[in-house]
């Protein structure tokens, strides 16, 4: 479905990603884990067209390298960015409608889908995005992503700064989203939880992929245990 070969990317002079190879198949949840500054967000930004890259990213046999970010969304790749990036002066419903900017005819159906997933958002329809708590904003950010009818959903640290309770809600939602047929690429520092719900995972270190395997294999890997799980 998504095929990345020899991907290099960075910011101006600064090289961040080096020779990344990664594939995602239809229906999978794939995790990318790594420490701060490893290049996880940069990887998602390259896929969604926010930054330029060299190498190959192919999506259903189409190269993404010459496509603009807004066209990539049209193809069904939706990126929920790190730090939520909610529109602060728009209401919950307006934020969700922006998520459905390109598929207005499904807007009503998708709104119901989001409100089923996060009933709390349904109670807050008219609250301004900027006045919501971090956890609520995260739900809104994921909901806004779903409004775009994703085939592949890129999630950048959805559990960042969330209480254990909200973290449960968010990971539960990711499972539900995946069961409904959406492929998920999940970037996380919450290594245990994310590998636990993932079919496969990649470990990234200073811009390179150093380890890959199924979720279970990685969870049982000695290096992963030592580096991320404190065991």
């Amino acid at each position: 479905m998504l095929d990345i070969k020899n991907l290099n990317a960075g910011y101006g002079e600064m090289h961040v990603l080096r020779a990344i190879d990664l594939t995602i198949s239809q229906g999978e949840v794939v995790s990318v884990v790594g420490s701060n500054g490893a290049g996880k967000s940069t990887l998602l930004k390259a896929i969604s067209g926010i930054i330029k890259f060299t190498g190959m990213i192919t999506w259903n046999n189409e190269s993404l390298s010459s496509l603009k970010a807004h066209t990539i969304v049209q193809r069904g790749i939706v990126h929920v960015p790190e730090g939520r990036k909610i529109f602060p002066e728009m209401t919950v419903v307006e934020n969700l409608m922006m998520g459905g900017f390109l598929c207005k005819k499904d807007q009503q159906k998708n709104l119901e889908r989001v409100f089923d997933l996060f009933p709390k958002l349904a109670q807050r329809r008219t609250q301004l995005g900027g006045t919501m708590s971090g956890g609520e904003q995260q739900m809104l950010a994921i909901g806004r992503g779903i409004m775009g009818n994703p085939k592949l959903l890129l999630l950048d640290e959805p559990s960042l700064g969330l209480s254990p309770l909200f973290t449960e809600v968010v990971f539960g939602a990711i499972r539900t989203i995946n069961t409904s047929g959406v492929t998920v690429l999940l970037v996380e520092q919450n290594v245990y939880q994310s590998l636990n719900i993932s079919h496969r995972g990649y470990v990234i270190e200073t811009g390179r992929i150093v380890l890959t395997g199924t979720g279970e294999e990685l969870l049982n890997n000695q290096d992963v245990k030592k580096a991320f799980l404190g065991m």
Partner: protein
Amino acid sequence: MSFLQPLISGILTGGVYALAGIGMSLVFGVMNISNFAHGDLMMLGMYLAFFSFTLLHIDPYISLVLIIPIAFMFGYMMEKVFINRVIHHPHQNQILLTVGLGLIMSNTALLAFTSDPKILTTTYSSSAFNLFGDISVSVPLLLSFLITCLITVILYLFLSKTATGMALRATSQNREAAQLMGINVAKMSAIAFGIGTALAATAGALIAPTYYIHPLAGHSFLLKAFTICVLGGLGSVVGAGVGGIIIGVVEAMSSTYLSSDWKDVIVFVIFLAVLLFRPQGLFGKKGGQ
């Protein structure tokens, strides 16, 4: 003289200033660019109104029907050809570019129209009526104000109800997130600049019947537009609307109670004071840039 006299003329003039300020604020919000050519775009609007009147015999207020789409297209193209090249550059590059474009416009106008000020005299240019007995209300100023209100309401509805309007607001609130929603932010920038130009030209056309029309006329309005934006909080359209009225009233009051030489000084003092003490603007919540 009654205190109400400068208040009312101030509000009427301020409405037109507000229009110019809103245009600049919209551009700043969506593109994060301070447009130093904004005053010169106003000057172009003045000349467009002047020539529609003298050559085509169209009333300056009616000519807005032509001026608005022409100015929009002009601004849209200007963004496509020049401004978008510096959108990710440091502010000093953007300032140099817009100052340069402004200079080209004002100097072209000097060559084409000479430095002789022109006056657009309509049948109602100096007509006025009395309110509450002793307050005189200028007819062209009142018309300008009403048209300003109409345009502001249309703009408000456009920004809050239409898909493109909402996309513009989204881009101004978070450009990267807007991109991730599938919004073509490059196009939004061009649209914002087109609207900003249309608003500047409209403001210019609206004041054309009451001001001297001159190739350098835009320069004094540039400072006003900046002050209005800063006062209202950079990027805030509503704030710019209120800021415009405030500046109009302050000017009218200082002309009445001090002398008209003082009004620009006072505007400049307000500009600096707001920057020093309240850079987020009177209504702003976000930190200033």
